[in-house]
């Protein structure tokens, strides 16, 4: 078995379809400009259409066009709001896929770095079991909210961004970038579960969040250990983590902005070993990008264009 696999090589059963990661990468660097957002999504429309065809996201594509993610994934999950069920289902499915990739990332850290210190291997092995339970927990929670594995396209973006060939960067990407993002997402989900009085969801996600704090701590400790006595390596690792954090902010959707879909879980991250300086930096890095107002305006234009195209195509078909 070779070492270091590509994200395309993650094995999945027949239920799953892939979503191209390029859209997520582009979204991470988009400016706060309605025209740019519209033109970018328009450019990727055929690709988005292809990856949603035959999935539970297809009706959303039919209704909203290529920017359906802007009105689902990039919007906050608020009790009683229109479309919240779809948002919750997509979010649950996205987390489930993220947990799968976190399991795969931890497992690959054992195989890819056979000469790593034993304590590192123990931490990664433990993380494998934790992520296994998270996959199982989210399969149950998906069932709880009425969505199944493979209902939506899977983006392997998290694995792609986080899995470096350098062990210090791997733990910076997976254990601090990805698991840090998980802290934010799960704190937000617990908030929603409390709002709707869903004790099952709240308790399960709270356990998962507790595990994630441990995984972030693994990352904090191993970044220091792997870069000990090598300040250049440490700085390159920090830079890699900044890049990952920027990509995982999805154009400001995960940030400390007032209009963010998911806010940074400051308290949880502090408990997990992030410093105040790192969190201040994260808030600055993740805050760039289109505002919610821009996203909504762009989504409206894209929806109108999509409907116009559909009407025109139907007219041509009749003629």
């Amino acid at each position, binding site marked *: *078995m070779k070492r270091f*696999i590509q994200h395309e*090589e993650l*094995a999945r059963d027949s239920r799953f379809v892939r979503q191209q990661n390029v859209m997520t990468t582009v979204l991470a660097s988009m400016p706060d400009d309605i025209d740019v957002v519209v033109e970018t999504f328009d450019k990727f429309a055929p690709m988005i259409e292809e990856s949603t065809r035959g999935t539970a996201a297809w009706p959303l594509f039919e209704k909203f066009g290529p920017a359906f993610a802007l009105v689902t994934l990039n919007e906050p999950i608020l009790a009683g709001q229109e479309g919240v069920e779809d948002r919750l289902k997509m979010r649950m499915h996205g987390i489930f896929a993220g947990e799968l990739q976190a399991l*795969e990332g931890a497992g690959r850290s054992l195989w890819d770095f056979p000469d790593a210190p034993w304590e590192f291997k123990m931490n990664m*092995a*433990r993380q*494998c079991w934790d992520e296994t339970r998270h*996959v199982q927990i989210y399969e149950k929670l998906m069932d709880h909210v009425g969505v199944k*594995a493979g209902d939506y396209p899977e983006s392997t973006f998290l694995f792609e961004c986080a899995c470096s060939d350098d062990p210090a960067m791997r733990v910076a990407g997976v254990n601090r970038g990805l698991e840090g993002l998980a802290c934010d997402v799960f704190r937000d989900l617990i908030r929603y579960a409390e709002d709707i009085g869903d004790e099952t969801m709240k308790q399960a996600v709270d356990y998962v969040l507790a595990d994630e704090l441990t995984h972030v701590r693994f990352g904090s400790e191993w970044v220091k250990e792997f870069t000990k006595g090598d300040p250049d390596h440490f700085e390159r690792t920090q830079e890699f983590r900044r890049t990952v954090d920027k990509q995982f902010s999805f154009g400001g959707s995960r940030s400390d902005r007032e209009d963010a879909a998911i806010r940074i879980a400051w308290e949880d991250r502090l408990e997990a070993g992030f410093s105040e300086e790192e969190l201040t930096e994260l808030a600055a890095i993740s805050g760039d990008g289109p505002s919610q107002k821009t996203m909504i305006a762009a989504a409206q234009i894209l929806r109108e264009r999509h409907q116009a195209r559909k009407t025109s195509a139907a007219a041509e078909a009749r003629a």
Partner: protein
Amino acid sequence: MSGDSPRMYPGAGPDERTTFDAYSAFDVPADLRELHGRYDVESTARRVRNFRYAEEWMMMIGGGWVATIPELPVKTGLGKIVWDDAQSADQLGHRLPELRCGKRSVSTSEAANEGLSAFIQEVAAPESPDLTIEKITGMFDVLKPHLLAVYDRMQRETDQISDAPTIEILDDIMRRTRKHIAWGDEVLDRLCDTDGKRERRRRRSVELREALEKCGGVTGEIADESPRLN
């Protein structure tokens, strides 16, 4: 102390004994263990390093395979087994300093010979997502049953009193290993649902058993160790 009351502690004189009943350390409950086993301190330490080598590599291989296996319950099942194997390797490692191997020996693994290293790499070789049967067969039909047989024999033949800490560790590892073998068997029974797939399982198992016998197994002494392979 008055002369009439029972003595609580022995004194120096022959009449200054306590009155407590005398038992052997093996009387209650009756304990039939005897001193002397097949392995001395050095050979037990070498075997523990051999066992640790196998457990550590199974942990790493399982970790690597998780991403390459499409069947979800196999992925998640392996995720737990990776942690179990890590604990087994860790327990074995902590026994090494107790066997005069030095403080730093806790993370020492040692292959019995080059053939065994090559065998482990052969177990790890299947990579493609359509090779779950070959992956699971190698580890759960061949390697783990072999280890269970060797652990079982070691547990019975080592000094039952002096080497009890190794026996206790093997107890834990064998309990987990039996569960792993049962899990692998269930997975393979489910996945091998055609004659062609059952033949793949059989062929892989035969090939690897031959390779294991050739290198002498986990300790390099298979002729003495593993009746299950014969």
